[in-house]
């Protein structure tokens, strides 16, 4: 594969790969370094890519490896799955008496879901849920792609996304979504 052919394959993947690295590293400088290093590694290893398989999955696997090579030990408090039932924010908003069914009062809650809030909530997730959830949200990845990138079975992808969403919602709510929505 020559450089032009490689460029054709990698160019559409770079925006999502950058967002993925940015969400995991939480640093523009680190994300920029990760993407450059991963792109160069992928180019040098391009002959190992099997034509007919998913270039996206192959490249994101390399990006993931570079993220973790750079990762520092995280010491954030992590949320627990036992305390995070399904549809967490909906249940909590209902319990707090926030009306969600008229014109569009759900905007009171939804408006608080900012990038900063999501980043903070993501950082509190255990790594296995954080990486699967980030791939799902920033990359429009299929379960099959996530399975290949993280080298885990499809059933594990489903379970990590399911638990990851519950944890993410609990972390968002615990950050003060309720107070902001009620007090505006």
């Amino acid at each position, binding site marked *: 594969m020559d450089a032009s052919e490689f460029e054709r394959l990698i160019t559409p993947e770079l925006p999502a790969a950058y967002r993925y690295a940015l969400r995991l590293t939480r640093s523009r400088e680190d994300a920029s370094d990760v993407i450059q290093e991963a792109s160069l590694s992928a180019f040098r290893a391009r002959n190992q890519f099997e034509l007919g398989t998913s270039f996206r999955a192959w490249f994101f696997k390399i990006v993931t490896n570079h993220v973790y090579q750079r990762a520092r030990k995280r010491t954030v408090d992590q949320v627990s799955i036992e305390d995070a039932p*399904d549809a967490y924010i909906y249940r909590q908003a209902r319990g707090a008496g926030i009306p969600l069914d008229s014109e569009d009062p759900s905007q009171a809650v939804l408006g608080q879901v900012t990038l900063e809030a999501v980043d903070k909530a993501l950082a509190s997730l255990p790594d296995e849920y954080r990486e699967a959830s980030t791939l799902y949200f920033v990359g429009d990845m299929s379960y099959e792609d996530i399975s290949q990138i993280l080298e885990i079975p499809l059933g594990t992808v489903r379970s990590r996304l399911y638990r990851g969403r519950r944890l993410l919602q609990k972390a968002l709510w615990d950050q003060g979504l309720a107070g902001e929505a009620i007090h505006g």
Partner: protein
Amino acid sequence: MDKILSCQETIVLLQGFVDRDLTPEESEQVHAHLDHCPPCREAFVFEGKILRRIKDAMMAESIPDDLMQKIIGMIHNS
């Protein structure tokens, strides 16, 4: 006759329903439950909005143009 799902069973299947990852039978069962259960329907609509909002927040930042150009340059010069 199709199994009638409880509210709890429906909530557990919502992720797969949103992602179109259910079997046709499961999907039909969720549809049937939502058609007759306003609280679950409200939860489903809200869940979709929350997931959309989280996705939009995460998609807010784009790769800088100069970084794209730098990477493409690196590929051609290495």
